[in-house]
């Protein structure tokens, strides 16, 4: 195993009453890497995220993050270790304001005593300012998150993810329902985050994935079918068969 490795999934198998959602999945992520994960519906993309974040316990296999096993750890402990997740449909707290949403994400330590006794730290307020500028929500500081447009909600959730300062960001379909312009901006944002952070993006919008200009892992039936750049992937016969479809000539 490479010393530079941040996350290593070894032979992960998840069985839901006999149905194999993941089947001996192996995946290795390097520090600072941007990785796209694609695959047809039911390939196990979301289950793959569920395993890393502790929502689903694998039947077999091992997840090593920063040299520690994540198996059996609670979700909040994994999050505190440095794994952040953005959900498929925007999951923000709609009854709280944009600022309150971000406060929840940037606050550390995340203990009840810290929350009830102390005011938020100045540097955390600065961080919120910075995040709101990045995702263009500075005008909406005190608006209820529920009143934002779909695209703004997606961006708020990305800002919340960044505010958590995770070493590993898992981003599930960040551009679903976004306009072309918003999609491009999101791709640029995610690219700018990698390098410092390790980012995994799950999506099946090909144009978006291409724009990320990163290594791509193709999932099929619960395991990794093939890995490589977008160009290699698109020429791979197996991938064409199961996912991209044959060219129409």
């Amino acid at each position: 195993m490479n010393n530079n490795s941040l996350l290593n999934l070894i032979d992960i198998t998840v069985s839901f009453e006999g149905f194999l959602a993941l089947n001996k999945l192996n995946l290795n992520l390097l520090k600072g890497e941007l990785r796209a994960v694609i695959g047809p519906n039911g390939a196990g993309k979301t289950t793959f995220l569920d395993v890393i974040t502790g929502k689903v316990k694998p039947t077999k296999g091992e997840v090593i993050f920063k040299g520690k096993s994540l198996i059996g750890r609670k979700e909040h402990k994994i999050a505190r270790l440095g794994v952040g997740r953005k959900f498929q449909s925007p999951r923000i707290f709609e009854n709280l304001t944009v600022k309150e949403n971000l406060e929840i994400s940037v606050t550390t330590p995340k203990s009840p005593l810290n929350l009830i006794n102390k005011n938020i730290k100045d540097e955390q307020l600065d961080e919120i300012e910075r995040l709101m500028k990045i995702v263009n929500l500075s005008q909406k500081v005190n608006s209820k998150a529920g009143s934002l447009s779909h695209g703004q909600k997606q961006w708020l959730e990305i800002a919340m993810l960044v505010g958590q300062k995770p070493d590993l960001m898992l981003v599930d379909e960040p551009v679903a329902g976004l306009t072309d312009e918003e999609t491009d901006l999101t791709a640029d944002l995610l690219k700018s985050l990698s390098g410092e952070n390790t980012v995994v993006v799950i999506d099946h919008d090909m144009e978006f994935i291409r724009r990320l200009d990163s290594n791509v892992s193709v999932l099929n039936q619960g395991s990794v079918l093939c890995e490589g750049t977008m160009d290699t992937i698109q020429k791979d016969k197996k991938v064409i068969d199961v996912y991209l479809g044959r060219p129409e000539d």
Partner: protein
Amino acid sequence: MTLSKIKFDKKIVLSFWIILIALIIAAPTLLPVFRLNLLGRYLSLSIVALGVDLIWGYTGLLSLGQGIFFALGGYCAAMYLQITSSSEFPNNIPEFFALYGVEKLPFFWEPFRSPVFTFFAIWTIPALVAGLIGFLVFRNRIKGVYFSILTQASLLVFFNFFNGQQKLINGTNGLKTDVTLLFGQMVGSESMQRMFFWLTSILVIAAWFFAKWVVKGRFGNILIGIRDDEPRVRFTGYNPVIFKTIIFSIAGGLAGISGALYTVQSGIVSPQFMTVPFSIEMVIWVAVGGRGTLLGAILGAVLINYAKSLVSEALPASWMFIQGGMFILVVTALPEGVLGWIQGDGPRNLLQRFGFKRKIETYPSLEVNNNEEN
């Protein structure tokens, strides 16, 4: 829009407090002692309602077992009063023990000889019991309707246990407090009841400030986050179990204080405090008053109970129908409760329905420009 709404909220809160404090000051001179005592009891119930609002309105935990903690607080207060007023009875223990041939005070009564212990026990014992039940339930990720059923089942367990323990706490008959002595005065006397009215009023206000302090800021936002999307809170790095246990414990402590105040003003504590309908009524007060508003809980508890006693005096059989109807009305027409309806756009929507033109909100700058043109 949001700005005018915030001002509107502040106006409601301020006017509510002015009316409430005026009423509290005027009540002892305006009301006969009987009515004053009723008002005091209902005010004490508003403290348990505040707790229900914290756990249900803010955190989304619908407990149907708050009667447990309410009764525990009442029993703590009653045990102290009984034991300090038992010097002329056989064996220097409360009178009822003689009925069952008990000669020695059960061990758990002993600490209640101390007023200091009792003062702390009234809220810490219910809070600890709530914390323990809560921790076990929340740790196992039991939520929603299963949580409600579990709290109701616990309530029944406590109810049946207390009912059966004649030799320990006088079983079904409960513990009387009105003929006991506190500071050399009869608890049921007029001057003491006035004193309890003042004490209750102060504690209601204190409880409101406390609850407000709990829900404001980031702690309260996490509670709302747990209510709206608990897994998301987990994935952000917070442990919802601890937050839920804390808030459930706080609600238990508030219920205990409420139960103690209610006991000394109604003159008795009995397992009747732990019946299923009573704990459901607590939820109805909050639902009708307005979930997640705190003030709604106080308003709901006081007004519904006052209405209950007035209606029951005039038309004894009809209260249950009115209460049921009120609940149905709130669930179907005012899901945010009365206060939530007022704070929302409720009154203006209603006026519009009756043909009044709705005032269209414009940006302040537009209004200024209009003036300049004129």
